C-alpha cells in the first residue's frame, strides 16, 4: 500500500502544506492511516515510558521552537473592530442596515433589523511594520513588531460556553482536554517545584464554561490545571495546616517514607512513583512560595507591569506571575482577563466604549510589560504568547447605548514569541468586519500552530478514549505557515 518514503513524508513534513501537488496530497492523505498506526505505537511507547512518572519531561515529536505558552485570555470576546481590525467603511455605514452583499450572520441577541455600529476608536500605524492598532492599546502597540496579528480567526459557536470550550479544547462540548492538558501530556513537566499547567482566573468571578473549560477531560488527572487563587498564596494545599510546622511535617514525611519502604515490593513501579510524588510535593511546598513571592521584584519591574497602581495592579501581578512561571519551566499558563457578570468581562453588550476602555486600561500595560520583560530576559524566543477571546463582537449594534453582540465569523487574535514571526498581519475580514474572507483560520489552526511550535504533531498527540484516538484538533488543523 504505502511505501516507507510516503510514511516518512507524513512525519517529516507538516501535514498541511499548501504548495503540495495534488498527487502528493492524495498520497499523503491515503497513507495517513498507516501513519496513525505508527503514531499509536509511538504513543504506547511514550505511555510506557511515562508509567513511572507521567510528568517526566518528554522529547518533542518534531523540532520545537518554543517550550512554553502563555495565553492571555480576554474572556467574553473583545471587539476586533475596536482593537486590531480597522474598518473605515463600518464608520461610514454607521446606523444603516447591513448591506445584503455581506451576507447573513447568526447572533445571540441581535435581530435582523439591527443597524451597523461604527467605532469611536482611532487607529494609527505602529512600529517598523506599520501595523494599525487602535488607541485602546498604546502600550501593546509599541510591541507590534513582535506580534503577528491574525485578523481572520473564526469559531463554530456564538454562545460563550460552547465557544470557550472550543477555544480551549477544540470541541464545543465539555469533557475534552484543554490545550494546556494536551501540552503537559505531550511534553511533560520541566519544573520540579511548580505545577506545570497553571490557570490564573480573574478574581472578579466565573466564566460561562466554568472549570471544565480548563480541565483535563479524558486525560488522566495528572494533566489537570492548577487554578491559582487571588492573593499571595495562590496554590491550594501548598501551605501546611496552621498547627503544623515545616520541621514537624518533614519528620512526618520521613516517617511515612520509612513505613512505605519497609513494606515495599521493589518491583512495583506504581508504589515508587507514589513515594516520588511525595518528594516532589515537599519540594513544591518549600520552593514554590519563593518563586511566587513578588515582594523581591525590583520596583522597575513592578512598574513595567503596572503593579501597585490601578487599574493595572491585578492583571499586572498575574502577568508577572506568568513570567516567573515560564522562567521556572511551567509549560502552559493562562492569564484570564474578565470574570463575573458580562460587563466585567469583555462582553460588551451594552456599551462598547465604556467596557473596552475599562478592560483595555486594565490589561494593556501588563500585556506589553510581559512581552518586554520576556524579551529582555531572552524568554520570548521560547515562549509563545497568545492573545484573544472566544470570539469577537458584531459589527451590528445590539443596543441603543452602543453595545455589540457575540461574533464568531471573523475576529482578531494575536501571537508573539515562541518562533512566531511578528510584525505582520495575516488574513482579513470583509470591509465591515463581518466575516473572515482572506485566509480564514479556525481555533483548530491556532491549536495546530501552537502544537507545531512546541514540537508536537496533531496526529501523533492522541489519547485513546472509547475505542478512538482523540486529539486536540478534532478536525484536522493547519499550521499557520505565514507566521512560523
Amino acid at each position, binding site marked *: 500500500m504505502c511505501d516507507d518514503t510516503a510514511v516518512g513524508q507524513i512525519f517529516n513534513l507538516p501535514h*498541511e502544506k499548501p504548495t503540495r501537488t495534488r498527487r502528493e496530497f*492524495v*498520497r499523503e*492523505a*491515503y497513507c*495517513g*492511516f498507516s501513519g496513525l498506526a505508527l503514531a499509536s505505537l509511538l504513543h504506547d511507547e511514550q505511555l510506557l515510558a511515562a508509567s513511572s512518572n507521567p510528568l517526566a519531561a518528554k522529547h518533542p515529536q518534531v523540532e520545537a521552537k518554543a517550550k512554553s505558552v502563555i495565553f492571555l485570555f480576554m474572556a467574553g470576546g473583545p471587539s476586533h473592530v475596536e482593537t486590531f481590525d480597522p474598518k473605515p467603511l463600518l464608520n461610514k455605514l454607521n446606523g444603516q442596515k447591513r448591506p445584503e452583499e455581506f451576507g447573513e*450572520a*447568526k447572533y445571540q*441577541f441581535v435581530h435582523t433589523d439591527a443597524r451597523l455600529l461604527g467605532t469611536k476608536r482611532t487607529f494609527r500605524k505602529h512600529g517598523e511594520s506599520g501595523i494599525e492598532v487602535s488607541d485602546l492599546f498604546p502600550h501593546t502597540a509599541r510591541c507590534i513588531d513582535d506580534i503577528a496579528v491574525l485578523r481572520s480567526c473564526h469559531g463554530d459557536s456564538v*454562545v460563550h460556553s*460552547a465557544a470557550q470550550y472550543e477555544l480551549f479544547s477544540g470541541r464545543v462540548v*465539555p469533557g*475534552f482536554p484543554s490545550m494546556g492538558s494536551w501540552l503537559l501530556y505531550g511534553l511533560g513537566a520541566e519544573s520540579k517545584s511548580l505545577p506545570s499547567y497553571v490557570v490564573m*482566573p480573574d478574581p472578579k468571578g466565573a466564566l*460561562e*464554561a*466554568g*472549570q471544565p473549560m480548563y480541565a*483535563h477531560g*479524558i486525560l*488522566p*488527572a495528572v494533566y489537570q490545571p*492548577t*487554578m491559582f487563587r487571588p492573593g499571595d498564596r495562590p496554590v*491550594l*494545599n*501548598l501551605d*501546611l*495546616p496552621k498547627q*503544623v510546622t515545616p520541621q*514537624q511535617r518533614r*519528620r*512526618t514525611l520521613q*516517617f511515612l517514607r520509612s*513505613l*512505605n519502604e*519497609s513494606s515495599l515490593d521493589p518491583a512495583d513501579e*506504581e*508504589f515508587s512513583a*507514589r*513515594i516520588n510524588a*511525595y518528594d*516532589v*510535593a515537599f519540594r*513544591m*511546598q518549600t520552593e514554590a512560595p519563593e518563586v511566587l513571592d513578588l515582594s523581591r521584584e525590583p520596583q522597575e519591574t513592578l512598574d513595567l507591569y503596572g503593579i501597585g497602581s490601578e487599574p493595572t495592579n491585578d492583571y499586572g501581578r498575574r502577568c508577572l506571575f506568568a513570567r516567573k512561571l515560564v522562567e521556572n519551566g511551567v509549560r502552559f499558563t493562562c492569564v484570564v482577563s474578565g470574570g463575573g*457578570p458580562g*460587563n*466585567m468581562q469583555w462582553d460588551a453588550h*451594552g456599551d462598547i466604549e465604556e467596557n473596552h476602555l475599562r478592560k483595555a486600561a486594565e490589561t494593556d500595560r501588563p500585556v506589553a510589560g510581559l512581552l518586554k520583560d520576556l524579551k529582555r530576559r531572552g524568554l520570548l524566543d521560547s515562549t509563545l504568547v497568545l492573545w484573544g477571546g472566544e470570539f469577537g463582537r458584531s459589527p451590528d449594534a445590539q443596543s441603543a447605548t452602543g453595545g455589540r453582540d457575540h461574533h464568531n465569523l471573523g475576529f482578531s487574535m494575536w501571537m508573539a514569541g515562541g518562533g512566531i514571526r511578528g510584525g505582520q498581519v495575516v488574513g482579513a475580514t470583509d470591509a465591515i468586519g463581518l466575516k473572515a474572507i482572506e485566509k*480564514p483560520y479556525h481555533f*483548530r489552526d491556532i491549536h495546530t500552530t501552537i502544537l507545531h511550535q512546541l514540537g508536537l504533531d*496533531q496526529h501523533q498527540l492522541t489519547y485513546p478514549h*472509547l*475505542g*478512538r484516538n482523540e486529539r486536540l484538533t*478534532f*478536525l*484536522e488543523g493547519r499550521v499557520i505557515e505565514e507566521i512560523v
Partner: protein
Amino acid sequence: MLNRFFHRPPRCSFQGLTMFASRSAIYPCSGECQLRRSIKWPVTTFVMLTVLLVASIADAQESKGVRFFREKIEPVLKAQCYSCHSRQADEVQGGLRLDFKAAVLRGGDRGPAVVAGKSGESLLIQAIRHEGDLVMPPKKPTLSDKIIADFVKWVEMGAPDPRDREPTDADDSKFEEARKHWAFQPIRRMGTLARPAVLNDEGTGKSAHPTDKGTLIRRVTFDLIGLPPTPEAIEAFVDDESADAYEKVVDRLLDSRHFGEKAAQQWLDVVRFAETEGYEYDRHIPGAWRYRDYVIDSFNKDKPFDQFLTEQLAGDEIEPENRECLTASIFHRLGPVRRNAGNTDIALSRNEVLTERTDILGSAIMGLTVGCARCHNHKLEPITQKDYYRLQAYLAATEEHNLVLATPDEQAAWEAETKTGKDEIARVQKQAQAANNAAEKDRLARLIEDLEEKLPAPLPTIPSTHNDFAKRTAMHVLKRGVWENKGEPVQPRPLSVLVTEDVAELSPGETQPRSQLAKWLTSADHPLTARVIVNRIWQQHFGVGLVKTANDFGLKGEKPSDPELLDWLAASLIDNGWRLKPLHRLMVLSAAYKREPRPPKSRRLSAEEIRDAMLAVSGRLNRKSGGPSVIVPVDPELVGLLYKPSQWAITADVSEHDRRSIYLIAKRNLRLPFFENLDAPALQTSCARRESSTHPPQALELLNGSLANDLAQAFAKRLERECGRDQDKTIDRAFRLALGRAPTANELQRSSEFLREQPLSEFSLALFNLNEFLYVR
C-alpha cells in the same frame, strides 16, 4: 440559517471542507475518522468521472465468468472502489455505483465506461491505466499490471456479474465480516460450555496461592462495599476455622446496605451521572439524587438487570403512575444540557439533547461507539448513519417531565411566592434597562442575581420524562449531522448488524417506542447487553475487565482475554433471571479472586473509597442511606469561580458532611478537588474505568488538604478515646483500624520513636498517606 460562507466551501479547498464539517460536529469524533473524512475531499473533487460497467449476456461461460468475477474482480472493486461507488460511500461519486449489477448497467454521469467485450473502448480500463484525465483509483498508485490485465480480461469476457439486486446493510462486506465479530455472535448457552476452571473455589495449580485471611477480607470488603473491614470483623474471620468462613463473610457483605452504594458508583460513572446540567448555568436538576438512590436500592434488592435497564429506558411508559419507574427514567435527564440566553435555536438544542441521549445508549448499555455514526457511516464499526438515526428515533418523542411531589395547596403557595419574586425581578430588570451608567447597571445586575437566588427552592420533584407525540421530533438521516440537512426519514429500528434483514422499522403509531428498545436490548439473544454488564462486574473485582475496553465491544475494542469465561458468565446471568448478586458472589468466591498477589495487581482505592475509608477509620462516618445530596464546604475561591456561587449552598447539618461520598453532590462545574485529584470522572461523558494516576498535587491533597488533616485529627481523638495514653496499644489499634493488621516489631518501634516527639494527629495523617492504606492488595 447557515450563512453562505459556511454553506458552500470553495471547491478544492481543504479549509472549506473542514470548516463546513465542523459546523455539524457538535459531538466528538475520533481523530482517525476525522482524518479519513478530511481525505475524502480530494476524492470527491477529483472523482467526477464515471466508470460504467456493462454486464454481459449469459452464455455457456457464465459459471466460469462468475467465478472469475468473484475471485479477481469483486475483491478489487471492494477494496479500491466501494468507498466512493457503493452504498458504503458517504456520498456516491459521479452518480456511479459499482456494488450491484443494475447500478453498473445504469452507469453514472459520464455514461457508459465499459463496453462489454471491448476493453479498448471502456472508460474503466482507461481510468485504471491512467490514460486520460480519469485517474482511478484516485488516491493511490496505479493498480498492478496483473490486476489491470484481469479487468481487461473480464471486460473481454463480457463483464459477467452475478450481483442481481441492490445490496442492503446486511449484504455489505463490512456487515458480512462484522457479523462474524465475536461480540455480535450469539452468547454461547449454558451446557455448551464447561464451567470455567478459574471460577472454581479452590486453588488450581502452583500460581494459585490463596492469600492470607487478613488480606483477603480487606480485599473483598473494599470490593463489595467500598469500606475497610473493622478490626472486629477481621478478627472474627481469622478465628473462624469453619470451611465456609469466607462464604459467610461474602454473604454478609452482599446483604449489607453498603453493597449497593459501592456497586452504584460504577454504574453512575458509566451513565455520566451528575445532578446539574453543566454549561454556563449549570442548573441543578431538582431531585436528580433520586436516581442515585434508585440505583443503590436496585443493586441492594438485586433487581434483575433486565428490569433495571427497562425501567431506566422506559419506566414512564410502562408504569406512568409508579414513582420508582419514573425515578428510573431520570436516566434520560442525566446528560449535560446547553441552555443559553438570547436567540435560542430550539431545533439545534433539541438535536443536541437527542444526540447526547443516543450516544449514552451505545457506550453504557451496548458497549458500542454509536456516536461516531452521527455524521457519516461509522468508519470503524458496522454502524451506518441510518442505524444511528433509527436508534435516536426511539427517543424522538421523549420530553422532560418534572413530576412535582406536593399537594395542590403546597403547589399553589409555592407558585404564589415564586410569582412575587419574579415580578420583583422584572421590575428591577426594567430599572436596569433604563439605567444610564455602567455602575448603576452593574449594581442592578447584581441585585437581580440576588433576587433570583431568593426565589423559593423547587418543590420536591422527580425530574422524569414522558412521551409527547404532538412534539415528536421528525427523525431523518441528517447529512453530516447537521439538523437542517434532513435526508431520508427514519423510524426506530435496532442496529442492522444485530438483527436480521426482515426486522422492520417500528410503525410511526407506536405508543411505547422506548419499551420496544428496552425489549430488544434485554432480550435473551441480544449478544451485547449481558456480556457488557458481566464484564463491568468482572472489572469491579479484578481491576480490568475480560474485555479491557468496557465501553467498546466493537471491532476496534479489545478482544476478550477469555471469551469462553465471558460467555459462561453472560449465559449464567441470563439463565439466573438477570440477577447480579450471584455473579458477584461467584467471582469473589473463585480461586482466581483469592490468589496472592492480587490479580492482576494491587488496586488503588478510588477517590470516594479513600474519603470513605478515612471517615470510617476515624470513626466519623455517618452511615445514613439515601436522600438529597450533601454539599460540603470547599475552598471559597473555587466557589467564587462558579457562575452562580449561591448554587453551592452548604448543607446546614454538619453531621451530613461525613456521609459516604456517593451522597455528596455531583456538580458538573465544581468537582471537589479531593475527588478531582484522585481520578474521579469529569462527569461529562461516560467513564468506563477509573484511571489510577499518581502525581504531586495528589500528595499535597492528602498531606495538606483540609479533609485529610481534619480526619487525621478525628482519628487521633478516637485513638486517645479508645487507648488512653497507652502508646503500644494506640499504635496497635491504629494499624488495625487503618490497615487491618497488627504492626510488625519494626513498625512498632519506628512508630514509638515518632510518637515520642510528634503529635498523634501527624501519626494518623502518615497512616492515611501510606501506600498500604491507599491500595488494596
